[in-house]
């Protein structure tokens, strides 16, 4: 596999010279983006199926076998729908907002490692980059709400903007703990820092367990997913910031939300569950039995677990009330994470730190 890639690379270099580098990067980007788009499409199907089964229904089952063509049908339907720009809306921003929502959700993937060596750009400040990119997601929402010139969209936008920024703080503090443990901001180093030869015992979710939980819950809140989906509280503010969107504009917001879900799952796996690492590595029997499994499999498996939890949450929990939501963010998560930063830092000063 690796040799094949190398041959391709050498051949390309010989053929195209200086233009080969950018072209090869472009190919890699497509290889990352296309599966994400596919993943988003089938995540919607998975959501409807899983929710269906949890609620004792079957979910979509008409388009294709077991409803497998449903996402494609949905896509085509949205494509054929008229893009309505409401009167009084700011045309340019109205159209730009969904793009602004989607782009950060995509570009953050540039620094996510899928397996050993499978990463587009191993930058030193990877984690910082991720945090910066996720903090941009709020623009799509605010601009959509404002440009729509609709009260419901506007209120929804303000609500979710305040929600997102509040939970971003908890996320940031939780990530500081990961940094402390890994002593590096590169995502590859963070994963490698969890490789101690004890399998999953070396992963950061053990010393940083509260942060692991906080990070994932804050991630759920960041993506405006149930039970934190106040931005689209149907009974109060219709569909929130994307009330006025139709057709492809709406589809882009949808894409952004699901791409963010996948991103959060991937990041949680990388930061706390050892990314592509084998959970049984170095274990007596299981380790040898699973040694052949590629890292990509473990990564995807871990992501799938978190994605399932996302859906499970939606099926299980009732929606938060706004004051409860803000209280959880500011009065529970921030103090907790702050304390844990100090605890981890102090812990690291002692010889009892094994990670």
């Amino acid at each position, binding site marked *: 596999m690796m040799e094949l890639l190398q041959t391709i690379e050498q051949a390309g270099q010989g053929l195209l010279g200086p233009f080969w580098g950018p072209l090869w990067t472009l190919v890699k980007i497509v290889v990352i983006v296309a599966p994400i788009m596919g993943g988003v499409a089938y995540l919607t199907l998975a959501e409807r199926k899983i929710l269906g089964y949890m609620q004792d229904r079957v979910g979509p089952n008409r388009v294709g076998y077991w409803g497998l063509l449903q996402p494609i049908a949905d896509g085509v339907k949205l494509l054929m729908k008229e893009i309505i720009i409401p009167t009084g809306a700011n045309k340019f921003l109205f159209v730009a907002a969904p793009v602004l929502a989607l782009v950060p959700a995509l570009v953050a993937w540039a620094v996510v490692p899928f397996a050993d060596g499978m990463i587009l750009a191993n930058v030193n400040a990877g984690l910082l980059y991720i945090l910066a990119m996720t903090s941009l997601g709020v623009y799509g929402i605010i601009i959509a709400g404002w440009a729509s010139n609709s009260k419901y969209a506007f209120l929804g936008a303000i609500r979710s903007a305040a929600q997102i920024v509040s939970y971003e703080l908890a996320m940031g503090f939780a990530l500081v703990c990961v940094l402390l443990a890994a002593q590096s901001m590169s995502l590859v180093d963070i994963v490698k820092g969890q490789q101690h030869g004890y399998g999953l015992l070396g992963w950061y979710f053990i010393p940083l367990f509260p942060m692991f939980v906080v990070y994932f819950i804050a991630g759920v809140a960041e993506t405006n997913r149930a039970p934190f989906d106040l931005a689209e509280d149907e009974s109060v503010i219709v569909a929130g910031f994307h009330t006025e969107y139709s057709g492809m504009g709406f589809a882009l917001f949808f894409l952004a939300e699901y791409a963010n879900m996948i991103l959060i799952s991937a990041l949680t796996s990388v930061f706390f569950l050892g990314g592509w690492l084998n959970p049984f590595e170095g274990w007596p029997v299981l380790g040898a039995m699973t040694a052949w499994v590629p890292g990509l499999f473990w990564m995807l498996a871990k992501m799938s677990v978190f994605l399932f939890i996302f859906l499970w949450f939606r099926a299980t929990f009732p929606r938060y009330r706004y*004051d409860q939501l803000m209280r959880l963010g500011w009065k529970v998560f921030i103090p907790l994470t702050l304390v844990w930063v100090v605890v981890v830092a102090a812990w690291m000063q002692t010889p009892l730190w094994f990670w």
Partner: protein
Amino acid sequence: MMTIETIVFYLFAALSVFAGLRVITARNPVHAALFLVLAFFSMAGIWLLLEAEFLAITLVLVYVGAVMVLFLFVVMMLDVDLVQLREGFWRWFPIGALLAAVMVGEMIWVLGNRQTAETGAEVIKHAADYSNTKELGRLIYTDYVYPFELAAVLLLVAIVAAIALTLRQRRTAKRQDVAQQVAVKRNDRVRLVSMPASARVSTQAQPDEAAASDQQKH
């Protein structure tokens, strides 16, 4: 020699000048704020070219991700009267233009000075694994500990000032007190009344009443 870096630099530089100009010329304040975001992005790009990756990304994280969000909040919600805002523009334009001209002139004088051109130090190129963040970390918390703590004090002042200037207590608002809710004992809410078995109607009414009073307490 035009390397790719030079091209990217001029790209970002042109973008930031353009964005900066649009910030002050845009008719719509929301557009102006968004152009400021663009300006921050291009400045981050320039910093990145200088290999100051921590500062570049922090610029995006803090200014674009936080400060500009507040800006947008304010700009979007306050109905800024644009006409009134622009009234004084032409009156003060000559002074502003003069100031700008002086600054540009001075800058040309300094940069055009032969000494400057000669003393321009070589930018050191770092290896791929060079971490600007670690470099900063080694200094901030040791050599620069005093300014670092002062920064904390500044942030504290900002917190106090922000609260003192914006917070208004509304006495009429009803709040949920979780501690109180959790501390509630069964006996506070539910009262078991032993009733004669024959009176069917009243047994029906009692639990409803208890439930109603329970709701009121929330």
